[in-house]
């Protein structure tokens, strides 16, 4: 697969801090990633690593007190989103960048019909109304796989099942043909069987509409299925990234290795399942040096004092662990 060299969206050294009563929570602490056109990128990490905050910041949805941008750029088609005024940002939201949230029940307004909610964005951004609008809504519902689309238009969110609601959210996001869709753990709140359907839906939509998807999840199984490239995030920093095959085949960061080792697979049957000791650090009280070092089996003295740089393993695969990098170089 050949990519263009101009990324669709490029996040550079983004820092987002939250001011608490006594301390500052460094939720996003120097994160850089990019999504290219027609690409499916996964952002992986446990709860509390800062991935949702990152996603919200791409749409300017972080509430500014208590949050604040500590630095960095978000370049969308060359333009820095952080410099945009609120009214300019509104023209991008829902239009060029759209988001699918985690909880479909609470994310849909209970007192408006499906047609109303899907059609809203189209009305605002594309100035289409009346019968053409209605037909577009029906088309969107069909695209996301909702049967009897025309009948569903006048339903209210509580009348649909969880899977259907999430499909409606996806339809809402697709409404204005955005170049980038951000999906924040869209299947976490759904049943396993429905999860699989929604995943396949994302994959087929991405291919059919030639758009990019930034898929945020904590589930590595999901990642393996659909992603072209993966970013692994921990404690507000990217610790490893590369093509899916590289990450799963030869992960080069202890955290990624730990995540992969804790996946139950057939080969581990009957044996004690590995789990990474300890817990994700409090964003306000992060360890010095490498954020992972308290839980890392390979940590040396150097890891406690020095924040590690990304080490290049070639072909777009980078990892933030000099210890393993040196080991790899020595053993070849």
């Amino acid at each position, binding site marked *: 697969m050949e990519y263009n060299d101009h990324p669709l969206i490029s996040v550079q050294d983004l820092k987002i801090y939250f001011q608490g009563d006594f301390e500052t929570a460094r939720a996003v602490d120097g994160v850089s990633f990019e999504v290219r056109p027609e690409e499916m990128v996964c952002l992986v990490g446990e709860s509390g690593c800062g991935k949702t905050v990152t996603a919200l910041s791409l*749409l300017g*949805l972080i509430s500014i007190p208590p949050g604040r941008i500590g630095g960095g750029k978000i370049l969308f088609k060359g333009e820095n989103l952080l410099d945009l005024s609120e*009214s300019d940002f*509104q*023209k*991008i*939201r*829902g*239009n060029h960048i*759209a*988001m699918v*949230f985690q*909880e479909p029940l*609470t*994310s*849909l*307004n*209970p*007192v*408006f019909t499906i047609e109303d909610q899907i059609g*809203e*964005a189209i009305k*605002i*951004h594309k100035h289409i109304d009346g019968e053409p609008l209605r037909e577009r809504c029906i088309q969107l519902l069909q695209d996301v796989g909702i049967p009897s689309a025309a009948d569903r238009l006048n339903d*209210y969110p*509580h009348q649909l099942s969880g899977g259907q609601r999430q499909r409606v*959210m996806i339809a*809402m996001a697709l409404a204005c043909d955005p170049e980038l869709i951000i999906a924040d753990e869209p299947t976490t709140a759904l049943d396993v069987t429905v999860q699989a359907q929604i995943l396949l839906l994302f994959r087929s939509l991405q291919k059919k509409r030639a758009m990019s998807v930034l898929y945020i999840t904590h589930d590595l199984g999901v990642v393996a299925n659909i992603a072209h490239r993966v970013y692994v995030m921990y404690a507000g920093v990217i610790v490893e990234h590369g093509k899916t095959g590289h990450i799963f085949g030869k992960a080069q960061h202890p955290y990624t290795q730990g995540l992969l080792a804790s996946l139950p697979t057939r080969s581990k049957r009957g044996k004690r399942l590995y789990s990474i000791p300890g817990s994700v650090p409090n964003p306000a009280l992060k360890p010095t040096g490498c954020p992972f070092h308290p839980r890392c089996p390979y940590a040396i003295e150097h890891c406690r004092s020095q924040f590690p740089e990304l080490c290049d393993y070639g072909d777009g695969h980078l990892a933030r662990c000099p210890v393993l990098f040196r080991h790899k170089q020595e053993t070849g």
Partner: protein
Amino acid sequence: MLSFIGRSFVQKTITLIFVSIVSFLIIHLAPGKPSQVDPLNPKFTPEMVERFRQAFHLDKPLHVQYVYFYRDLFTGRTVSWKDNQSVLAKIWERFLNSLPLFIVGTILTWTLSFPAGIRSAIYRGGLYDRTTTFLSYLLISIPGFFFAYILIILVVTRFQVPVIGMETFGVANAAWPNVIMDRIWHLLLPSVLGATGGIAVLSRYVRSQMLEVEGQDYVRTARAKGLPPDQVHYKHALRNALLPFVTMFGLILPGLIGGSVIIESIFSWPGMGRMAYEAILARDYPVILTVNFFSAVLVLMGTFISDLMYMLVDPRIRL
């Protein structure tokens, strides 16, 4: 829908019956006899007292009295013990006096509370919010009669405007624009007073509802779709925040028969509140019980209307 109406009606009628029994018992079980029938009252000779007792069935056991009273109530024959007027006529007359106070007060309350509360919520923490919050607390905490006197002093000394009673004595002979202005001046202070407490409480409630709704996920979704802030606040948030208030609307009804005793006393306004107060003092049982009855009817009607409106307005509820 019909079954809901039917069930509601039956439940509320049963409640009404119990209310009538309880109020009857309270009145008759309280110590002290109505002044008219008190053998110690020097104005009445023993024969008159006895005749009085017989005429009002006071010598019969309580449950018989109960039946007599409510029979009279429903046939409109109940008569006040104080001045022998028909109770229903008295109530009607006082009701018409209280009505303008009530209407003006309610309009003021509801039209001022919402913009204030909504604005406070949208610009939470700002100067407007902090000022209105403090004012609200002040208004809730001030004793009604104290505030009344402050306002009276202000209005009378600064604006030379008459405030006591419903109209200035002798104004009926003046030209009709003067009569109307006079009425309005007299109406102003009591209704404003009645409204202030309500505005304070209602606007706080509007604010807290609005805040709660603004924190919901679907408001975030609306913003993520690129909707302009007006649509986010006034279409998505407000519509949900208003739901509980639609139901509160039905509960305004009981206010019709209320009428603050204190405000009416201070302004010498001949309204329902004072009538009930005077009836209590004179132990004028028919009046007290009738007022109580109507108040209960209004409360029950009010809650019924609230439930109905809630069903109509919230698509999640379909009984």
